[in-house]
């Protein structure tokens, strides 16, 4: 669901900055609105300020200036109402050790002021494939299982806004896919999700909108499809039978480039243009007697877009 301006946002961040005691400015006047029900991916290199921003919203780090409201509740003045709506899955595997899975997840629910609801806890544990492990002590679980426990704790009190801070860092492929399935289910249930990730593939697959944060500044917020369309383009590579010395004359209206050894010709085009020009290019090449033994196409990924963006700023 894309962000719409008429519905009141579940999260509104206005002019939030954070300067740590040592003088390090982690965030510089961040403005951000998140619509109910959307999945928002926050991308950025290490130390960009992703976790600081999340920690401020959740009440773990004090803000230096600015205001934040969660579903209209100020996180300082009306912290109870604001925090009740938030679930946080932290980046580090910070779990208890001696408690059982069931106890630690039930504890989280109680901490958030919710009445006991064994049926809900059971559902959360089953969804995360933790049900069989409910009586196990946390210290006996694998890293992936502990990650699930953290998610279960965050979901125990039925949050409306869920923060997933690098949920799949150091997680194997199978578990990652399982987590994506959980995220989709939550979205269907109307939960708003904000995730930070290093795996751009993840943002590409899951997010409705993407924000890029670099050196404490939110340098871009865009709908994913729009971002991909605006900044993404496609390349068609023709692997030639005979190497060429230069791009043949008469092709200046095509964006062509020749590889260094002259063995392949690359054509960049906009996938959204009315005509890609591929058909005419092929025809022209055939007329010129340029033959190729193979062709391949490549779509620029979010990763490339992201790297370009951050590098431009650096």
């Amino acid at each position, binding site marked *: 669901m894309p962000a719409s301006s008429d519905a009141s946002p579940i999260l509104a961040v206005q002019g939030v900055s954070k300067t740590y005691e040592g003088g390090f400015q982690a965030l510089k006047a961040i403005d951000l609105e998140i619509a109910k029900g959307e999945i928002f991916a926050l991308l950025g290199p290490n130390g960009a300020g992703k976790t600081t921003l999340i920690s401020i919203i959740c009440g773990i*780090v004090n803000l230096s200036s600015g205001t934040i409201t969660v579903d209209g509740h100020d996180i300082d003045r009306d912290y109870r*109402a604001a925090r009740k709506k938030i679930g946080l899955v932290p980046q580090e595997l910070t779990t208890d050790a001696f408690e059982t899975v069931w106890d630690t997840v039930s504890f989280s629910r109680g*901490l958030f002021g919710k009445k006991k609801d064994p049926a809900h806890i059971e559902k959360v544990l089953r969804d995360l494939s933790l049900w069989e492990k409910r009586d196990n002590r946390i210290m006996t679980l694998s890293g992936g299982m502990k990650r699930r426990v953290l998610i279960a704790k965050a979901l125990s009190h039925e949050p409306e806004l869920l923060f997933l801070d690098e949920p799949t860092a150091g997680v194997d492929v199978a578990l990652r896919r399982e987590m994506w399935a959980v995220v989709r289910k939550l979205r269907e249930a109307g939960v708003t999700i904000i995730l930070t990730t290093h795996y751009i593939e993840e943002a590409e697959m899951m997010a409705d909108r993407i924000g890029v944060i670099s050196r404490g500044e939110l340098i871009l917020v865009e709908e994913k499809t729009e971002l991909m369309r605006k900044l993404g383009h496609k390349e068609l590579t023709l692997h030639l039978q005979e190497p060429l010395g230069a791009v043949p004359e008469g092709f200046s209206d095509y964006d062509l480039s020749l590889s260094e050894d002259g063995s392949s010709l690359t054509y960049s085009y906009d996938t959204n243009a009315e005509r890609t020009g591929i058909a005419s290019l092929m025809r022209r090449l055939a007329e010129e007697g340029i033959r190729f033994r193979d062709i391949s196409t490549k779509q620029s990924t979010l990763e490339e877009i992201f790297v370009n963006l951050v590098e431009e700023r650096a």
Partner: protein
Amino acid sequence: MNFTAIAAIYKFEMARTFRTIMQSVISPVISTSLYFVVFGAAIGSRIEEVDGVSYGAFIVPGLIMLSLLQQSLTNAAFGIYFPKFVGTVYEILSAPISAFEIVIGYVGAAATKSIALGLIILATAALFVDLRIEHPLWMIFFLVLTAVTFAMFGFIIGIWADGFEKLQLVPLLIVTPLAFLGGSFYSINMLPEFWQDVSLINPVVYLISGFRWAFYGASDVSIAVSLGMTLVFLAATLGAIAWIFKTGWRLKS
């Protein structure tokens, strides 16, 4: 008030107690019994009565206080230090719960545990010596007040500590000496006058004196002074905790 959250923290902490029942309860009981055997029976039989009470019975309030102080302090300190150490404190900080409620949960559990322990030691003592409690309500009052005060003190230490050494430093280097020198095993009236005056700087003197008064009706300092000093200490810890949460000291950056 988020009573559900207070209950959650309290239950979590009490569960920790029951998981470590051996070190939580049995070891203090054994060490206290040893004190009775050594000081009460073996050496105590050669010591004359103090304030009209046999030496074995005389040391009971002091021994209970000694355990109460140490246990309240270390339990509360460990209770808040451990989440900080492993990082699970993020959940407490991000929960819809006030500082006051957090303190009630942790301090309440630590105090409960040490009070229970005090009563167990009292029962153990009854097996060794003839006990009488002249002011049982005051006895309970001092027990609870001291347990809560020292649990709060421990809570502050748990927040202050950034390593396990610091966590053990205060109980070991400050509380134990103060408790021993605070008249656990003697009446400060037995000291030379100079040392009696020095002893009055020690806050634990007032706790033990008041507590012993509740048992035998005799005290080193007046009961009103004892009570006043205990309340002053309680107020000081409350003030420190209020400041900690206001500034986020060692909890939030």
